[in-house]
């Protein structure tokens, strides 16, 4: 996969492939934001899960733009196909009816703005950090090969530990989930 990068210093024309890609990118970002907003704001958990799925679909697009189609696909496969569905299943099993949680007396009035400000603070801080820092961009890596081959090679050679860890984590998760879910049913 070749990155769609214009020669340095120039900007893409609106009707070129690069421009088209830019529009698509904006769409994916829109998906991410709207999904996240739905997920966080909505009172109904099912809608929150739907928002989560939308957001992660958008994120997959973002990863694609980060020259890593493999991770993008895995994002879809794991987050949308497994995690969201798992959570939705959890909701099905754990809430008999879609109850909208009633407001608590004092805390809830306070917690909304408080949480909002904390979230905003984090966002502002990190964004500032992102924009202000002078990142040392590797020029030659703009065209780097982010293909699955490289990932696979490193995963089995340099970073084989990660591979093993992933396996162990998943195995433990399977066993743990089985044990926990079984215990609940007497």
């Amino acid at each position, binding site marked *: 996969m070749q990155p769609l990068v214009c020669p340095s210093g120039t900007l893409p024309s609106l009707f070129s492939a690069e421009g088209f890609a*830019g529009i698509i990118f904006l769409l994916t970002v829109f998906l991410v934001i709207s999904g996240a907003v739905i997920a*966080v704001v909505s009172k109904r*958990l099912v809608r929150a899960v739907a928002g*989560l799925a939308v957001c992660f679909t958008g994120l997959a697009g973002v990863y694609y733009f980060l020259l890593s189609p493999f991770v993008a696909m895995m994002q879809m496969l794991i987050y949308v196909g497994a995690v969201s569905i798992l959570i939705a299943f959890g909701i099905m099993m*754990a809430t008999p009816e879609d109850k909208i949680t009633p407001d608590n007396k004092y805390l809830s009035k306070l917690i909304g703005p408080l949480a*909002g400000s904390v979230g905003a603070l984090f966002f502002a801080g990190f964004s500032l950090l*992102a924009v202000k820092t002078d990142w040392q961009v590797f020029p030659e890596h703009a065209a780097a090969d982010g293909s699955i081959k490289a990932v696979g090679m490193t995963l089995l050679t340099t970073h084989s530990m990660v591979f093993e860890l992933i396996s162990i984590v998943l195995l433990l998760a399977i066993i743990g989930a089985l044990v926990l879910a079984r215990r609940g049913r007497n």
Partner: protein
Amino acid sequence: MQMVLEILNLYNCMSTYLIIGAMLFGFGIYGLMVHRTVIGMLICAEFVLAAASVNFMAFSRFLAPEPAMGQIFTLFIMAIAAAEAAIAVSIVVAVYRNYKSIDVEDLGDLHG
């Protein structure tokens, strides 16, 4: 016009991705504080993890000497997230079976 074209070129800019990550993190933190059910919090925790992955991916694309590095970390995070979701959901189901509620405040007597 220049403005429009610059917006169209956002995807070639590292700070865009970092800001997306920061935003997801902010949403995640906000949600974690606001949501009062375990599953709601779980959803928001996923956002925090996703924020980390976006950052890893962005650094790997623009900064890292070895491009596969960030991707591997992201994959690792995905595995963690999947495992976390599985465990969390099974805990939730188990807890719900016993307490008939997934509201964190109702689960006060869970300790001990």
